[in-house]
């Protein structure tokens, strides 16, 4: 069946204004933009159709910026020593990919990111679930987490060096702090977004606590949890790189710091662009996964 029309059983109450129902339940805390925008109903459709041409505009703009940058350096409007043109950055990427120091740094950062994301998410999920499902714990601890969210956590960085030294320690620990806070907030928001009537149904039909958790809480919160995990990855990455940038002697962050300090700006930019590109790729892949598990939130189709 094509999913674009509504389906009515023959001879039933098929009436045009008995429209598909469902409330938009965008979590106040969780939920990323792209997954959410498809859920707003009809008017959005007008904008969605223009996706193909908007992509061209985006690429056109990017091209124009790069072109302007390149020409500005060529005519001397920008100082190529401080801001090398895109062409030199691009050749820098190719050149750097052969350097073993770069490969080691990338591996170190990837390792720190993986460890800090794993720990940060596990901690975040556990605490988020506890706070989401227990009123008392939530009232006691959620305000603290929210306050923590509001302060710039980089100020704690010096303490992390004191506690964890100059190796992988501070990056991983700082990544754990940043990511777990994000995951907690998102998981609590996701659990909050579940309608009370669903808990009522579970109770009315005699569901055990475990069954309620498995059939109501977990699937109901899954899209928000998934979005939260993405924020977890992002923040673990920020934590790891920032710590490496300022205090560690390892990883991509350290390498960018040492390149800029020795005026290898093109190489520093190359590294930054490469990392940014990887993050964007991962983000898009995550978005695809997220839409797949949130399929039930789409009003039509399937």
């Amino acid at each position, binding site marked *: 069946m094509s*999913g674009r029309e*509504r*389906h*009515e*059983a023959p001879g*039933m*109450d098929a*009436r045009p*204004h*008995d*429209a*598909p*129902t*469902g*409330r938009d339940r965008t979590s106040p805390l969780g939920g990323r933009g792209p997954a959410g925008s498809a859920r707003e109903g009809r008017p959005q459709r007008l904008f969605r159709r223009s996706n193909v041409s908007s992509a061209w505009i985006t690429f056109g703009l990017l091209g124009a910026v790069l072109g302007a940058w390149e020409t500005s350096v060529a005519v001397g409007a920008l100082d190529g020593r401080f801001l090398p043109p895109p062409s030199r950055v691009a050749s820098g990427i190719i050149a750097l990919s052969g350097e073993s120091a770069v490969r080691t740094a990338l591996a170190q950062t990837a390792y720190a990111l993986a460890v800090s994301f794993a720990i940060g998410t596990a901690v975040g999920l556990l605490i988020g679930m506890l706070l989401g499902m227990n009123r008392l714990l939530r009232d006691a601890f959620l305000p603290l987490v929210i306050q923590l969210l509001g302060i710039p956590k980089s100020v704690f960085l010096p303490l992390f060096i004191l506690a964890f030294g100059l190796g992988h320690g501070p990056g991983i620990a700082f990544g754990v702090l940043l990511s777990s806070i994000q995951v907690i907030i998102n998981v609590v928001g996701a659990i909050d977004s579940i*309608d009370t*009537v*669903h808990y*009522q*149904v*579970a*109770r*009315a*039909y*005699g*569901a055990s606590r475990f*069954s309620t958790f498995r*059939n*109501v809480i977990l*699937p*109901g919160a*899954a899209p928000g949890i998934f979005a939260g995990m993405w924020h977890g990855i992002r923040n673990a990455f920020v934590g790891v790189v920032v710590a490496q940038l300022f205090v560690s002697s390892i990883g991509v962050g350290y390498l960018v710091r040492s390149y800029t300090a020795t005026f290898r700006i093109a190489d520093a930019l190359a590294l930054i662009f490469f990392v940014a590109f990887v993050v964007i790729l991962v983000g898009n892949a995550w978005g695809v996964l997220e839409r797949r598990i949130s*399929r*039930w*939130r*789409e*009003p*039509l*189709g*399937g």
Partner: protein
Amino acid sequence: MTLKVQDLDIIYPVDGGDLVACQNISLSVQPGEFVTVIGPSGCGKSTLLHAMGGMLRPTRGTVEADGTVITGPDPRKAAFVFQDYSLLPWKTVIQNVEIGLIFAGSTKKDARRIAVEKLERVGLAGYRDMYPRQLSGGMQQRVAVARALALEPEYLLMDEPFGALDEQTRRALGVDLGERLSKSGRGVVLITHSLEEAVYWADRVIVLSSRPGRIVKEIQVHGDRPRPLEFMTTEGFTEVRAELFSLIESGSSQEIA
């Protein structure tokens, strides 16, 4: 099984005193009987239904099933059909019909077999793999009814199940489900604020006063079920409807005054 409510008081503690939702309510529902409960909004009719299904504990009085006091929900005795949006949106139609059974402890296999049959019973066999959002409001409520029927309960407790639907859908669904449920031989307690629905569905209408909800009157509605839509044009129907109208209107005007 006879469902019996005796001297029921339900009082909610609220800021600045107690809120009496139900006061001194006694009633019983016989097997296979259709009872509708109607009253001004906020009169405690949903509260009464929730107490009858063991979802909340009465402050005073008891709810009994064949002499045994009900202390918690038992969906095989009395299964709920909630107001609206009660389907789990992340489960497909068939999974939603199964879930009541699974919550109640059935195996996955049994649940599937029964769910397929009940979905057919409400005329939605072709929609089993869709998500609730893809269905109209009326179809969603059919699924909710199938979910309740899957437990083969002795009573269906329906809490304004058609409240969110527009009038024509509501009437069509009411006639159709009324017929199917009449044939199933189960008892039904239906909460409604629609006079038409209250009379059409009922063997007996119970009228509650505005808060605190007390039973103002019980009215027998004659006429065999299932009833054709034309029942709504008969004299018997019109008379009861008129009586209900005056009872409810005087109740609400008191509330406003």
